[in-house]
């Protein structure tokens, strides 16, 4: 009996508790259901898929450009179609410009699906810090989106039509995806850039986007090729396609894991083109008598095309060809590295990180005169190439 009574008492207490809770939660719910300030209805949004930022040094104004996607019609009969729309505004700060966009747009702009941030040459040169700060502070901008520096103003590039008549963002995404088949363009995520940007010792390479005019076409086209070099948080110059390929080869594994590229070089009296794929890469630094860097690359390769007859079915020829390819690549790497070291004096590969990580004591002495030492560091590149496949046909036969 006693137990029952107790149970009853607790039951009543529980009921009271429940009613209090229910009333409270109902009050809360009815007050707020569906009318939170954070709600964005899908039907009201314009999806920003590419963003451009320009800076005019004279007027000190930023121009903020958004490439948006909107549904074509408001009737449901014709669904599945999206149209693109480019809008830009300028202001004294990026945020100011971005907010001004709101007055020109009848939709809520959503940046969460934005994958490309294109920065004008001037902006990259003169106000890169502010741009990066804006990027990583803003919650809507993903740190995995790619940053490109445009030759010319970014706003002009975003206004261009693509050759495939596809949406610009899809086109760009496809071009980024194709990077692994070519290796002459580079796409760098904001996260990497933000991490390297404040490093006083190393620079980095970001993507480059430019207009390219073909002689056989009247229209200009967007192209991703080459790269842009940053040092000390500022844009310092462009990088040509060959150098970008070397940057790929000497970067983190994610950059070369799926990379295949082709190179042509003279061999005997013929010109040979090979497809290469990087298998193993190691960059080691030593600090025995002065800092040195050793690079070991091993690649596998397939014969792509041969200009004249070559007896590639013979082992001797293949070995010679492998040697030739190795020396060709070694020279290429040396050439690019000397460009980075001597002409640019920018540590784009991140040798400073290597010294810091593996020789912390020596690094303490090195780092004060790093900018003087870096151009003089001897770099040994060792490349081994293995030609493991010849293609469907061994050779076409002699004349």
């Amino acid at each position, binding site marked *: 009996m006693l137990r029952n009574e107790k149970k009853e008492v607790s039951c009543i207490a529980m009921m009271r*508790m429940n009613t209090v809770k229910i009333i*409270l939660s109902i009050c809360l719910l009815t007050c707020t259901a569906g009318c*939170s300030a*954070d709600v964005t209805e899908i039907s009201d949004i314009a999806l920003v898929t590419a963003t451009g930022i320009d800076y005019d040094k004279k007027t000190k104004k930023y121009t903020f450009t958004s490439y948006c996607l909107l549904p074509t019609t408001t009737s449901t009969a014709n669904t599945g179609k999206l149209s693109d729309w480019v809008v830009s505004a300028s202001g004294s700060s990026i945020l100011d410009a971005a907010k001004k966009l709101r007055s020109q747009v009848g939709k809520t702009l959503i940046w969460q699906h934005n994958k490309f941030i294109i920065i004008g040459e001037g902006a990259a040169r003169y106000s890169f810090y502010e741009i990066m700060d804006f990027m990583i502070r803003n919650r809507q901008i993903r740190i*995995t989106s790619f940053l490109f520096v445009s030759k010319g103003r970014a706003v002009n590039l975003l206004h261009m039509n693509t050759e495939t008549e596809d949406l610009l963002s899809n086109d760009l995404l496809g071009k980024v995806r194709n990077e692994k088949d070519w290796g002459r363009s580079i796409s760098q995520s904001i*996260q990497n850039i933000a*991490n*390297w940007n404040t490093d006083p010792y190393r620079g980095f390479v970001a993507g480059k986007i430019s207009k390219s005019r073909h002689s056989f076409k009247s229209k200009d086209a967007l192209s991703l090729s080459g790269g842009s070099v940053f040092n000390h948080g500022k844009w310092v110059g462009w990088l040509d396609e060959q150098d970008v390929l070397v940057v790929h080869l000497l970067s*983190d594994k994610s950059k070369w894991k799926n990379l295949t590229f082709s190179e042509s070089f003279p061999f005997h009296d013929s010109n040979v083109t090979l497809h290469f794929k990087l298998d193993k890469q190691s960059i080691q630094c030593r600090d025995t008598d002065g800092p040195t860097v050793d690079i070991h690359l091993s690649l596998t390769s397939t014969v792509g095309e041969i200009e004249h007859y070559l007896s590639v079915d013979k082992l001797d020829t293949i070995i010679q060809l492998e040697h030739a390819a190795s020396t060709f690549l070694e020279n290429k790497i040396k050439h690019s590295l000397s460009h980075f070291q001597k002409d640019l004096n920018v540590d784009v590969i991140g040798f400073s990180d290597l010294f810091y*990580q593996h020789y912390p004591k020596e690094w303490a002495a090195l780092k004060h005169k790093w900018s003087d030492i870096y151009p003089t560091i001897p770099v040994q590149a060792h490349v081994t190439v293995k030609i493991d496949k010849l293609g469907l046909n061994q050779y076409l036969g002699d004349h």
Partner: protein
Amino acid sequence: MAAQNKITHGQLSCLVFSYLSGFSTLFLSEAALLKQDVWMSYLIGMTLAIGMLWLLCYVQWKHPLLTMVEISDKLFGHWVSRLVLMIYLIYMLEMQAAACRALSTFYTTVVIPNMPSNQMILLIILCTTYATYLGLTTIVRAVQITLPFFLVGILIICFFLLRDVETNPFLPQFQHSFSEVMYGSLLSLYFPFGKLVVFGFLLARVKNMKKIFSSSIFGLILAALYLLVSAYLTLGTIGIHLAGTATFPFFSSIQMVKFGEYLERIEITIIGIWTIFTLFEIVVLQYVFTILLRHVFRIKNMKPFILPIGLLFFISAQKSFLRLSDLTFYNLNIAPFSTMLPIAIIPIMLSIMTLLRKEKT
């Protein structure tokens, strides 16, 4: 105490792990401070926490039939014991306010910027009050239900992040001075490892007294491992410089996870699971708070006071740490030192008193 109201030692491990791991990876402030040397501070902090735990278990073993509050009454006498328990009450109030604020700040910064944080804290407190009301055995069972989901989620995340880590982020080692490492250890002792001190008041609730130490150590080590792994991944994926300046470094690294080309930005799912998990910390704090309050004020029937305690929690959370900088300042400059009193000094005093009493008899 009735046998039905007790928890098993395995459940204790689960509770310890989830209590410690809820918030531990949110700020990673010691990782931002010590970067690659953070593992040392975790190791030292964990060792210190194990010591503290051993003291508590020692005291409990010597008085197997009493709860920790009764032991403190017995050792210190009624009035001093009340004072001691008051210190713990204040400690827990601070901790929960910091936890609520951290959670609401995180949400307003990252997910829902326009949501009033008061509303959020109120909702959180209502949930935890309900849990406190249901009792320890229910809480523990709920932990057991949610823990596998959390672990699976985190394991998937870790797996995908691990692919992005290319160079060992814990290199070069031993670059920080002794005082820096010690300060980092102090930080990690205060948060998260030292939080474990409140479990002293729950030790009497475990069925198998012999295993209280080993099972809570198990939970603690798992929590430390989780913390270490997330620090490793954070430094490895978003880079040392960015990890030092990001407000929520582990969150930023979770943002990097993508499954192929198609599915990315899945951090919301993780935040969802993680939110449930963080609530358990506040629940445990509120539960222990209720136990202590009952003892300090000698209240017979505690049920009607649970909602008022929740409201007290709400008010204290709502009035404190209005700026994120306040919270950071508190976390870095005040709390590591002020919380030494409940975390270290009182357990030591308890064990010394136990030792003295034993010698007398």
